C-alpha cells in the first residue's frame, strides 16, 4: 500500500468522489487555481473546471449558505473554510439552517453538505490560525463532526462524509497535513462515521482523544512501554459527534483508568462529554478518577514560541500524565 501524506489523502478523497458523482463540487476561498491556502484542492479545478471548483468571495457565511442551498437542490457540496478560525461568520448558517433542515421540514428536505475546516495550532499561527472550534459546534443535534488523525482515516472519513445524507463538519488538523503519513489503499473504501478506532492495545490505562494529540500519546506510550513496562490503550474517537459510546465504554472498561486528551480547551470540550458518559455508565469499572489533559482555558493560542509550546500538548506532557495515572 502506498504511504501518503494526510493532506494528499484529503485531496484524493475529494478527487475520487468528484469523479464518482457529478453532483459533488468544491467551493471556498482560493480553492481554484491556487488550490487553497494549504494546496488541499490543488489540481481539482484543472481536472473538473470552474463549474465544479468554485472560488468564493471572502464571506464564510455565503460559502456555507450557498452550499446549503445547493445541497437542498440536490447537489453534494464540499464547502472549504480556509481556517476553522474564520468559520464563525458561517455559524448561523451551519447551526440554524444546515443542522435543522431535515428536522424542521419533517424529513421532506435534507442537506448533504460537507464543511471542511483546518483546526489546530503548533504552526506558529497565533490567534487567527490556530483555533480548535469543536466545542462551538459540538452538542448541536443534526450535525455530524469528524476529526481524523491519520491519512487513512482522513480519506475514508471524507468519503463517508460526502456520501452522508446529512451535514458533516470535517475538522482536518493543519499540523497533520505534511507531518502525518501512513498507508492508504488505492481502492475505494470508507471509514464509517460514528465508529472509534483502537490505535494501540494496552491494559494499564486508556487514553481517549482525537486528531493531532493522539500522535503525542502514541509516542509517549512507546516510551512508557520501554522505560516502565506500562502499556497504554489508545482510542481514536475519529467521530466526535455522534460519539461512539460503546467504543468508549469498552476501551475504558479494559483498564479502569482513563485520560481524555484534546487541544481544544478543557472547559466544555469534547472531553467533558466523554467523561460524563463514562461517569454515567461505568462507575463500577473505574479504578481511578477520570482525567483530562487539554488546552488551557485562555482566550487564544499565543504567537510567541514559548507561549505556544506552553499552550500545546506534547509528548512530554502526555507521558507525565499517563505515567501518573498508570501509577495511581
Amino acid at each position: 500500500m502506498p504511504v501518503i501524506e494526510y493532506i494528499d489523502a484529503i485531496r484524493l478523497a475529494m478527487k475520487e468522489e468528484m469523479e464518482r458523482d457529478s453532483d459533488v463540487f468544491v467551493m471556498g476561498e482560493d480553492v481554484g487555481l491556487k488550490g487553497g491556502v494549504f494546496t488541499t484542492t490543488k489540481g481539482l479545478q484543472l481536472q473538473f473546471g470552474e463549474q465544479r471548483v468554485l472560488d468564493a468571495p471572502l464571506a464564510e457565511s455565503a460559502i456555507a449558505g450557498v452550499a446549503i442551498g445547493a445541497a437542498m437542490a440536490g447537489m453534494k457540496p464540499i464547502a472549504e473554510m480556509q481556517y476553522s478560525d474564520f468559520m464563525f461568520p458561517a455559524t448561523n448558517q451551519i447551526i440554524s439552517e444546515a443542522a435543522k433542515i431535515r428536522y424542521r421540514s419533517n424529513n421532506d428536505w435534507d442537506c448533504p453538505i460537507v464543511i471542511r475546516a483546518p483546526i489546530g495550532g503548533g504552526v506558529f499561527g497565533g490567534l487567527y490560525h490556530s483555533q480548535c472550534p469543536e466545542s462551538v459546534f459540538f452538542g448541536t443535534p443534526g450535525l455530524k463532526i469528524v476529526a481524523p488523525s491519520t491519512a487513512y482515516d482522513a480519506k475514508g472519513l471524507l468519503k463517508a462524509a460526502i456520501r452522508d445524507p446529512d451535514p458533516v463538519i470535517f475538522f482536518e488538523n493543519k499540523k497533520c497535513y505534511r507531518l502525518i503519513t501512513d498507508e492508504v489503499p488505492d481502492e475505494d473504501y470508507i471509514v464509517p462515521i460514528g465508529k472509534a478506532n483502537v490505535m494501540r492495545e494496552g491494559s494499564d490505562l486508556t487514553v481517549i482523544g482525537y486528531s493531532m494529540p493522539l500522535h503525542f500519546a502514541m509516542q509517549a506510550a512507546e516510551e512508557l512501554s520501554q522505560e516502565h513496562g506500562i502499556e497504554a490503550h489508545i482510542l481514536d474517537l475519529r467521530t466526535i459527534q455522534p460519539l461512539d459510546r460503546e467504543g468508549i465504554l469498552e476501551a475504558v472498561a479494559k483498564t479502569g483508568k482513563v485520560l481524555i486528551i484534546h487541544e481544544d480547551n478543557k472547559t466544555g470540550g469534547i472531553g467533558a462529554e466523554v467523561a460524563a458518559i463514562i461517569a454515567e455508565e461505568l462507575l463500577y469499572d473505574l479504578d481511578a478518577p477520570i482525567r483530562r489533559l487539554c488546552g488551557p482555558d485562555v482566550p487564544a493560542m499565543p504567537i510567541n514560541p514559548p507561549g505556544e509550546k506552553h499552550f500545546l500538548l506534547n509528548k512530554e506532557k502526555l507521558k507525565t500524565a499517563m505515567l501518573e495515572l498508570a501509577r495511581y
Partner: protein
Amino acid sequence: MAKQIIEVTMPQLAESLVSATIDKWVKQPGDMVDMYEPLCDILTDKVNAELPSTVRGKLVKHLIGEGETVEVGTAICLIETEVSDQSSQSTDNGVSEAATANPQMQPSASRPLVSASVSSAIDSNAPMRHRYSPAVQKLAAEHGIDLSLVPGTGEGGRITRKDVLVAAESGSAKLGSASTGGAPSSAQPSAGAASASHFVPMDPKVPVRSTGMHLTESPRIPSVESQAQEVPGRGEYFIDITPIRNTIASRMRQSVTEIPHAWTMIEVDVTNLVMLRGKLKDDFQRKEGINLTYMPFLIKAVVNAIKDYPIMNSIWAVDKIIVKRDINISLAVGTEDSVITPVIRNADQKNVPGIAHEIDDLVRRTRNNKLTLTDLQGGTFTVNNTGSFGSILSQPIINYPQAAILTFESIVKKPVVINDMIAVRSMVNLCLSLDHRILDGVICGRFLQRVKENLESYNLDTKLY
C-alpha cells in the same frame, strides 16, 4: 556560580513547517555565543535564515552536522551557560522542562511501579491503602477476594484493579482464607466457594448502568407513514394527509379567510336545452365518439356572459383589480377522494363540440392521474357541475385567487307558472359565490341574468357547428 548545559532546538520558522536543514555552522565548539548571535544558517521549504542563539554561553557541541535535515524541536547543539546558585537549585534536576515538571519521572523515585511484584509487603498504614475504587470493589465481590489480603501497588499503597486481578488469578486472597487459620489458602481453591455463608456478593449480572439517554439508541429518523392505520383498542383511526389533500386544505382555507364571500342564486328554465340535447346526443355520439352533456352548453353560456361583463374574469390585487383578457374556465372535477380544477384554455374561442371534447379529455385524464401542471394553471373563472351528484343548491368556495365560481345544479322537472298558466318545465339552479371586494350584487345579478338568457335561448333549431 554553577555551570549548566542547555540544548538549543530547531525552532518553527513558519506555518506548517515540520523540518529544516542546517546549511552551515557559524559558531564552532569552544566559541563564546551571545544572546541572539547567529549560531548557524538553516534552509527550509519556505525560508532560509540565520538561527539566533536563545542563550548566552560557550558552545560545547554540535549535535547535528551541516547538510542534515531534522524535525522541528530536535536538539541541534549544546551550550554551556552560567547560572546563579538560586536558579540552579530549581533546575539542577536536568535541563529538560518536562523532567522538572514531573518529579515522579526521576529515576530516584523509590515507589514500586505498576508492574511491581505482588509479593511486596502490605502496609496497612499507607495513605491510600483503604481507598477502594469502584472497580476494585466490583472485582473483589465477583471473585470473592478479601481486600485486606491484597497487596497494593498503586500510589500511596492503593490497591489497584490490576492488584485484584492478580490476586484473583493466584487465588491468594480468597474470602475466608484468613479466618480458617493455618491452612494455606492456595492449596484450597474451593475454600472461597465453601465459605460462601459470609460472602455477600454483588451479582455482576445486575445492570449497573443507569441513565436512559445514553443507553437507548439515538432516535431513528421517522419515515413518512402511508395510508390509514388502526390504533388498537381505540375508537378512532388516523388517515395520513396526502399531498393533494394538503393542497386542497390550504387553498380552501386561504380562500375563505382572504376573500369575503357573497352568495347568490338564480333559477333557469332549461326545457328547450334538454330537448335540444335529446335530439342531438345520439348523432353526436356517433360523429364525435363522446357523450354530449349539458356542461359545454353551460360553459358556452357562461363564457359569452363573461364577454359582456369582463369584471367577472378578474383578481383582487390589493391596490388594483387585474382583469384578465383570456377566458380560461377552471372545471371542478371530483374524484373519489379529491377535487381538481383543470383548465379549459381560451374557452371563448371554442364552440360547443370543441368544449365538449376538452371536457371529456380533462375529466378522463383527471381520473387517470394524467394531468400535467400546465393543465392546472391559468384558470380565471370556475364552473362546477354539482348537479352531477344530485345537489340542487350549493354554496361554493371561490377557487383562489379568482373573482367568482358558478355551480350548475341538478335539472329538476317542476310546475312553473308561465303567463298565469301552470306548466311542467325542466328547471335548474345556478349558484354564484363572488369576491365582494371586486363584485357587488348588481353586476352579479346582471351577469347571472345574461347566463340565464344565454341558456334559455338554446332551442331545437340551435346549430352546434
